[in-house]
């Protein structure tokens, strides 16, 4: 059991509403507020992506609901190809043509982008470790800023690729092949 989980369980023992059934209304209300905050915090902290998002929000790098939906430059060519295939699939679908070839092509692209997603996750993990190290080492503001910038970029790239993969999945499901 990691430290985060241990801390979460420890606090759950203290704060959970079940421990306050026989107390007055004010205490019950407080227990409800605090245990819900505890659960919210644990939900964010145990998920590496949500955790980075939260860090960036705290540091004022990112505002909720505002993120870039621009294709990362190095992916432009592949994204272009993918979108073309998706268009072809849609056309073929409405024309009732054979979808097997297109579907196979899309599946390969989906796999390719899925791997890229893993790469981004790994890079994000490294950057997050760098952030922790920078804090421990009391690094300069500009160094820290640079890491946050990098994390923000990675997060944008991640959400972009994820949307792509989800879009392909949806089309493939619709094609039912």
């Amino acid at each position: 059991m990691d430290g985060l989980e241990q801390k979460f369980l420890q606090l759950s023992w203290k704060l959970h509403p079940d421990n306050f059934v026989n107390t007055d209304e004010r205490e019950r209300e407080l227990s409800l507020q605090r245990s819900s905050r505890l659960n919210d915090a644990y939900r964010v902290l145990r998920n590496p992506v949500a955790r980075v998002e939260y860090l960036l929000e705290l540091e004022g790098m990112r505002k909720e609901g505002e993120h870039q939906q621009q294709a990362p430059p190095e992916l432009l060519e592949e994204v272009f190809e993918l979108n073309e295939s998706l268009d072809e699939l849609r056309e073929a679908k409405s024309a009732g043509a054979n979808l097997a070839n297109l579907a196979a092509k899309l599946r390969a692209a989906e796999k390719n982008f899925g791997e890229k997603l893993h790469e981004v996750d790994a890079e994000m993990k490294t950057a997050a470790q760098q952030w922790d190290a920078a804090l421990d080492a009391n690094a300069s503001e500009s160094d820290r800023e640079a890491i946050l910038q990098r994390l923000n970029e990675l997060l944008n790239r991640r959400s972009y690729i994820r949307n792509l993969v989800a879009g392909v999945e949806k089309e493939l499901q619709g094609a039912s092949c």
Partner: protein
Amino acid sequence: MGRIVGIDLGTTNSLVAYLDARTGQPRCIPGPYGSTLCPSVVSLDPDASIIVGEAARRRLLTQPERTIYSVKRLMGRGPADVQSELQLFPFRIDPNSNHVIRVMLGDKMFTPPEISAFILRELRNWAESYLGETVDRAVITVPAYFNDAQRQATKDAGRIAGLEVLRLVNEPTAAALAYGLHETQRGHVAVYDLGGGTFDISILKLISTGEGDIYQVLSTNGDTHLGGDDIDNLLQAFVHERIRETEDLDFSPHGELAQDLRKSLIAAKHELSEKESVTLRFILPNGKTFVHNFSRADFEALVQNVVNRTMGPVKQALADAHLAPSAIEEVVLVGGTTRTPLIRRTVQEFFGRKPHTELNPDEVVALGAAVQANILERGVSNMLLLDVTPLSLGIETYGGAVSKIIPRNSTIPASAQEQYTTGVDNQTGIDIHVLQGERELAKDCRSLARFTLKVSPAPAGLPRIEVAFLIDANGILQVAAKDMRTGQQHSIEVQPSYGINDTEIERMLEESIEYAEQDFAERQLIEARTESEAILGATTKALANPQSAEIAATERSNIEAAIAALKQSAAGTDYKLIRKCIDVLNHTTEHLAELLMNSAVSTALAGRKLAEV
């Protein structure tokens, strides 16, 4: 304060359980018919009294228009939601129902929580007469998959029945508690619960900590329309089809016969859990006997589809918990339908281990509710239950899309804060629509509530209001709003999309007490009449006894007068008067009884030697 009990408010049957202090084990409480299962059936007698359970179940055939079953299917749902149910269930729904369904029993209308409250009140009576104590608080179980409105409706039913609902516990979680797995096991547990009408799967993690054991629900999934009833429907459709083919006979106009057939099919289904084959015999309206030989293999081929449909949610729950089937250390089976060998086999093959079946699968949920009730009663415990919300909570955004603010399978209580502002100058209100579900568009999700935040006129973008959405430990939504500029708490009226408001609940509670009083009077009357019949019978018999010739003429005429008075009172409805007349007759016949007793003793002794006595 009275005792806390655990209640399984089921689709088909309901049960009440308590923790036996002597053994430390939970136990289900039997009702007047000796069974711990109270059929979830409610009937409105023509004399306006309410009948619940086995007695009501017997009226399903004789008074179908005054009797309702499976009301759980209507809990927290709107008229549009239940159209598909109406194909399968003969609910008589008031066509003028808008946000809350009203069901007609005879010529009276009731909401589903009111009907559930009658069942809860009956179980409360069972518990009070069994325990000899007041019962005013309860832990009630709900399917893990129940949404906010369904949970709220269940809580409302408790309130209408005069019970404070301390906690709604998910049925699968209750089952794990009943098995007390935390005492012997660590690791991951899957609870597979296939009941009469619903299917639930939950993945739990059992953790030991310094303070005690924690049941953490990692994920939950299911299908609100999957269960033993589907198997019965399949069997029935299959047999109806056979009868139509071989006898050219349509069963649809034969409501009562169809019910009888369904009963024999259910019995056959149960038998097939033990035997390899059964022969179904059924007398048809044309006088012929329909005979069909069911082998277990035929049966399994027929229900394979139902069993397969459970596996989708099972896989989804595992995926949500990030676990492979092999990572599950214990599997628990719940619900009567899991007695089916095909289901046991399928579950065992999927998880690669033998599931727990030691406890009665019909009782296990109620037993777990009693364990939780006991934990809450004691206040402090070495066991803690961390449950999750089964559905994502979202808010409708511009263009009818949904923005998810609390994802499904979040540990509850859970909350989310959203900030709102105005889009045009002097805007006085912001409309907020809260939804529950996994789909992307608001129209595909379930509407929980709509409300308008009132804003004082100001330039666009200046007002800042923070709305806090909170899902409590029962899985029920609470909403609060705060004006960020003034720091003042903002009052909001949340009108639930498919719920009853507080005023209506108060009214229903009052009416329900009236019914309860009527109920009580009704029972007293029935008992008094039964007793009067018994004593009238005995007295008539005594007067016919030759020995009674010994009594004086005045005594005889006194007795006859008392008999006449009792007969007259028993024809009325005043049970207190009947009791009084019974007492008078008892008193008047004391001498006669003594006389007959003595002669009975001498008759018994006659012809015997003293030594034999």
